[in-house]
């Protein structure tokens, strides 16, 4: 799974947005909360979804694997719906 564009993150209101940048970039806005932004950044950095889940479980006490996986899949789904992922 690869994110096929350059994403820029920014604070927007109470959360964050991620937008693709570049010549042919679509004017898409992906809304993220704090955790979503961390997940998305990790995916952009090249981590696989499984690696991101693993990082969340290592970093946060009290988060179970199902919750972590759901969070990661939610972000992946947003990126896929926006056409920003190549498998």
């Amino acid at each position, binding site marked *: 799974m690869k994110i096929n564009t350059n994403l*820029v993150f920014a604070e927007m209101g109470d959360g964050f947005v991620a937008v693709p940048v570049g010549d042919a970039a679509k004017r898409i806005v992906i809304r993220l909360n704090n955790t979503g932004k961390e997940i998305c950044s990790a995916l952009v950095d090249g981590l696989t979804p499984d690696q991101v889940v693993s990082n969340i479980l290592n970093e946060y006490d009290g988060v179970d694997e199902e919750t972590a996986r759901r969070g990661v899949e939610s972000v992946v789904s947003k990126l896929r719906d926006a056409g920003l992922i190549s498998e």
Partner: protein
Amino acid sequence: MENTYRIGNKNIHIKSVFPRVHNLCKDYLAEGTADFSVETFQEDIDKERMRYEEACLKEGKSIINYSDGYLEGLAVYRKIASKMLDYDTFLFHGSTVCVDGEAFIFTALSGTGKSTHTALWRKLLGDKAVMINDDKPLIEIAGSKAVVYGTPYDGKHHLSTNMSAPVKAICILERAEKNSIETISPDEAFPMLYQQTYNTETSEGAAKTLALLNKLLGLCDFYVLHCNMDIEAAKLAYETMRSK
């Protein structure tokens, strides 16, 4: 050809291949030193033509053979818009009217009726309504206020005034049979605001633009106006937006 103009509260030295852009900017001539310079070359014009033709092909529109001088004008504004981010100022696509010292910006996808609607404001309010810019004004985030500036890039009817005013409200237009207006949250307004803001194509430019938009969200009111072409649409919009 070259000269200096004051646009968006900055003195800008423009050097171009063709003279057309200087005729476009003639109402904005400035004296004094330039805050920055932009220069265009034939390759900028060729790139603008390519960009335009690609967009036409993508949208299924026929290609108009614009002159190099005309396209150079667009290339100049592109360079200005990119540099103005350094001054907390961004290019926004919206028809902007000033009434009693406050600016109201109407934005929407092309062809929706922004200019038609602000023309109704002028019909309703006469000389009280002054067009700041009918197409691509500049918005500066100046501390605790957003200020909109008239620019020479003022649409096909060339409606603009070399002036500025604080932004009271930004209104997203949608065509409808019956007129209605509602307040929307900054969150709800953001996607359209972003879509109507100049796309800088660099990560740094995008980050700066988003930071400015984030500030804008707290500096004015936001509305959606569902409207037809009746003057009642202007009356509803004006009376609602000025009163808050």
